[in-house]
């Protein structure tokens, strides 16, 4: 059950999704992506398209609200959890509730839905700047690893304070007072990223090989602060050391130059002995396949953390794949990796094979007709 109120062009609606899912067919600009955006908003309380929260309010209105009943796969018959989120433009107030109660921090409420979204914008993770790949890791880790989001926020906060101290020309002792909280949170963030990548890199390679039908790709964590074989508890020291070594540079640039805000997730296409960066040398189809493999491991890591299959949201995600690749991706998605499937397409004939068994809904000017 999904209740929508003034979210983009979706008006006031209550939708009951069939347990297996639904295929939503409608011309472009009718609101298909808006619907997936609303559903995924309940997972991260952000737009998957990177829109600012005030852009999600219906035109000329002040408040939107989205509420969903979430049934987790492993307690069938148990009572569903209600996740609700609202935003008021005039007061800039965000409100999130879980079964009616406000969590202490909004971050405590993320990941309750358990969903993965595949969309054309995923290309940007592969061919965009490093910030897109860091954000991908951050979302995956925030949803699945206890304490990650808190550490990430503390890190960003300490970084902003240290940079402000550098810009305002404070004494060295004042600037460097931030080194301790900065390095402490950085070490947690970096340790978690390193662990996550090493846990999932084989699965990533496997998915890429399976979809591409032969070629290979690798994913490697490349931190700005080298931590190669250091144990987790050595990362803090490495960060402190990097801050020491780069002090003169930081002072000159008035900005902190080393830390997880400069990390890279290297995605490389492998051909025999040689490897090239997908970002620079990948074809459209290769980059798309890398993005799909990333989303598939994200789904796996959610499934493992929650012990139930995540909801699969497919927003016209197969545009640049040839038929063979498309069929292999759909094969992978079918193998109990995901639970409910909500898929959008402009025309019935654009619907990938998996849509076959699903009920069809239409969408016209934001109104969904079941």
């Amino acid at each position, binding site marked *: 059950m999904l209740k929508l109120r003034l979210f983009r062009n979706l008006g006031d609606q209550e939708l009951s999704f069939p347990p297996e899912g639904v295929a939503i067919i409608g011309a472009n600009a009718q609101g298909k992506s808006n619907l997936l955006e609303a559903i995924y908003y309940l997972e991260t309380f952000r737009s998957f398209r990177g829109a600012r929260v005030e852009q999600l309010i219906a035109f000329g209105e002040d408040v939107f609200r989205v509420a969903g009943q979430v049934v987790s796969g492993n307690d069938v018959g148990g009572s569903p959890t209600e996740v609700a989120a609202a935003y008021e433009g005039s007061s800039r107030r965000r409100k999130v509730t879980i079964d009616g109660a406000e969590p202490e921090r909004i971050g405590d409420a993320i990941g309750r839905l358990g969903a993965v979204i595949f969309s054309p914008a995923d290309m940007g993770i592969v061919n965009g700047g490093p910030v897109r790949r860091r954000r991908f890791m951050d979302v995956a880790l925030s949803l699945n690893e206890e304490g990650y989001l808190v550490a990430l926020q503390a890190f960003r*906060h300490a970084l902003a304070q240290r940079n402000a101290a550098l810009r305002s020309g404070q*004494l060295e002792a*004042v600037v460097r007072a931030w*080194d*301790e909280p900065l390095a402490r949170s950085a070490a947690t963030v970096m340790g978690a990223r390193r662990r996550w990548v090493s846990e999932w890199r084989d699965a990533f390679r496997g998915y890429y090989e399976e979809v591409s039908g032969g070629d290979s790709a690798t994913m490697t964590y490349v931190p700005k602060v080298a931590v190669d074989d250091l144990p987790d508890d050595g990362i803090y020291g490495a960060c402190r050391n990097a801050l020491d070594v780069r002090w003169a540079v930081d002072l000159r640039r008035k900005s902190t130059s080393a830390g997880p805000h400069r990390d890279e997730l290297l995605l490389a296409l492998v051909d025999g002995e040689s490897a090239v960066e997908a970002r620079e040398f990948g074809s459209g189809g290769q980059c798309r396949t890398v993005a799909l493999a990333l989303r598939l491991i994200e789904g796996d890591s959610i499934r493992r953390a929650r012990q139930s299959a995540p909801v699969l949201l497919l927003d016209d995600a197969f545009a640049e794949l040839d038929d063979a690749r498309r069929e292999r991706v759909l094969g992978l998605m079918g193998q109990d990796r995901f639970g409910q499937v909500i898929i959008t397409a402009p025309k019935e004939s654009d619907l990938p094979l998996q849509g076959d068994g699903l009920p069809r809904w239409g969408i016209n000017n934001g109104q969904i007709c079941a």
Partner: protein
Amino acid sequence: MSVIQQLIKEFSRLPGVGSKTAQRFGYYLLKRPREEAFSLAAAICEVAEKIGPCEVCGNFTETAQCEICSNPNRDEGTICIVEEAFEVGAIERAGGYRGLYHVLGGRLSPLDGIGPDEISVRPLLERIRSADGAVKEVVVATNSSVEGEATAVYLEGVIRPLGPKVTRLARGLPVGSELEYVDGSTIVEALAGRREM
């Protein structure tokens, strides 16, 4: 602006009070017997007139020096540094601490333009220096926030050269409203588990 609107505007400045709650406060006062309003106003005026910062530690006081600074039974060898004066109350209620305090009146926050000169650091250093070795230990009880930690690191760097041992609570003091929900024993434990920085 009508006097009612003026009152509502004043209420809405209070922390955690939005315009709707401010309105409710205003209309509530108008509905109640007027003595209630007078006694609230009198209490506010009295606080504004009589309460000021202690000239030694910055704690709330009705006299030049607060009750703690003027109590001869307190241990003058130990100073506990807190960010805000209300935190003195929280530690006192927890019981068990016998030393003196120093209220910073904030925390380092370059994003808000707050450096050491914007909080009570100089008076603190002056206080330690003029005690001429009598201050043996300084307990840094700033919050467990990122700002509280950085402030602690900074204070340690400027205090240690003056002689006293500098210690930090086992965990920093909880932040703001969280402090209200912390039971006294947690603060006592944090004090007991303080470690040299």
